[in-house]
């Protein structure tokens, strides 16, 4: 059966289709979050300066990237492993959104002005109440054209860069645009 060229070509096409669809799915998923998700604006914060530029992307830190352990409700799924974490934000003054509350379990009673993001703790959640828990949301990297990184880094250090984030209903987040002092810096097309 397999010696017949027809089957071989069918299999080859199947493989190509399979691998293309994996790639296609990741593009479409992101586009659907950008298209259908709700937008929030987060002020970015300077990350450790030495870690800012690696290759051609800037590392973006947010106010909700580190949360005090005592502000997080619920119990983590595991004491020794990274854990899922759900964080809600609400509009603050000067159009930037602020941390509202956090829980290790999905938040059920989201208020009308709140939006929930799903993140993952960077390490196993610490037990001390005043420890800071690092959280990743999948929006920590923004790839930029070569040579333009330094400008963003400077602006970020002066706390001028805002990120427009699209958040899907289940809390998945994608970067939609970067703004400097309210002016658009980069805007992301859907595809």
């Amino acid at each position, binding site marked *: 059966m397999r010696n017949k060229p027809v089957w071989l070509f069918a299999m080859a096409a199947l493989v190509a289709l399979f691998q293309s669809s994996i790639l296609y799915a990741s593009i479409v998923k992101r586009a659907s979050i950008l298209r259908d998700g709700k937008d929030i604006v987060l002020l970015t914060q300077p990350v450790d300066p030495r870690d800012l530029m690696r290759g051609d*992307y800037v590392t973006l830190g947010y106010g909700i990237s580190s949360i005090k352990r005592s502000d997080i409700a619920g119990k983590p799924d595991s004491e020794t492993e990274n854990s899922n974490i759900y964080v809600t934000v609400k509009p603050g003054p000067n159009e930037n959104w602020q941390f509202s509350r956090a829980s290790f379990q999905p938040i059920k009673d989201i208020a009308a002005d709140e939006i929930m993001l799903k993140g993952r703790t960077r390490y196993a959640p610490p037990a001390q109440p005043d420890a800071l828990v690092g959280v990743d949301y999948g929006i920590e990297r923004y790839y930029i054209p070569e040579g333009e990184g330094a400008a963003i880094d400077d602006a970020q250090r002066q706390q001028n860069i805002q990120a427009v984030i699209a958040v899907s209903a289940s809390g998945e987040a994608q970067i939609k645009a970067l703004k400097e002092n309210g002016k658009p810096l980069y805007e992301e097309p859907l595809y």
Partner: protein
Amino acid sequence: MPFPISVRAYIARWQKNGLIDEETAEALLSDVRSQGRRFGLGNTLAVLGAVLLGVAIITLIAANWEAMPRLLRVFMIFAVIWTGYLGGAWRQSRGDTVFSPVLYIIAAIAFGAGIALIGQMYHLSGDAALAALVWTVGVMVAALLLKSRALAITGMAIACFYLFSFLSDGFYPDRQYLWVAPVLAALGAGLAWYTKSRATADLVALFLLAFFLISYFDLNSLTVLWLTGAIGLALFLLDGFRPDLSDRIGSFGPALAAYGLAATLLALSVMQFEDIVRDASGRVMFGILILGLSIGALALSGRRNRSVRWIAYVAFSLEVLYLAFVTVGTLVGTSGFFLTAGILLLLLAAFVARMERRLHEKNPKAGASA
């Protein structure tokens, strides 16, 4: 037994000595030929060329990513994937054994490049390990559907890349590899069997050795080492005491035994190393264990298993030198150390040469206790 010299040379010799007639020789030769070609220089160069070409395509697209619209870049990646697989199938249907794997490999690399490029273009900051895992599984599925040796090897090589991506990430963010890696090894072993690819099987063994070492250094638990040592020893002893069972899976059996022995010796030497770090006094005990195991391995299966023999030689020699270094080395001066080391090396060389003569040239049937 694995053949140290080309099988063809053996067959020619047997025919010359009158052990087999011309008809048998022909039958044997055609069987050898049907068992897959040697991976010749031509093929190696072609595959290396494919890898370079694949990387060239990726870097070209990545470097010009501002000049090209995104969708065009995605389209180019898709085009390479489709051309690679369909073109490879076309060459394969024409009986081309060089360009068919080359095209498959280019397509497999393009798939990985697509994952990386899409992550970059769309700012998906997922972790490298997950991307490598998707790549591995995608290529393994391709190897299965196309029954391609080249893709099986590529898939396993990418699996190694997946494993090492944890090392460079400092095991961040998860320890999923603890259960993913054994699954990948099982898949790789299945592919090695399905595509009859010895190179894939070897890669699986190396992958597992690396997995054990990495998980030991990650978890920092001696249990991992004991487990590694025990599994390895079991594999080795099974082959040593029941060669009839092990021969049933062809040359895989002895190879498995050799990797098992390597795993055990590796585990023992890591324990010995830990012992030195903690400055406990077990180094002599582990030394004796390693030396004893090497000698025992030589006695048990050295005669029929060439790989076991060489692993035992290497382990024995390194251990002797190491023990000499920690015991004698601290007592005598530098020149004295070199003198001791030189004499030891010569003695070891004489030992290896002698063992080789005894084990290699004698017919396995001539006396078990020789």
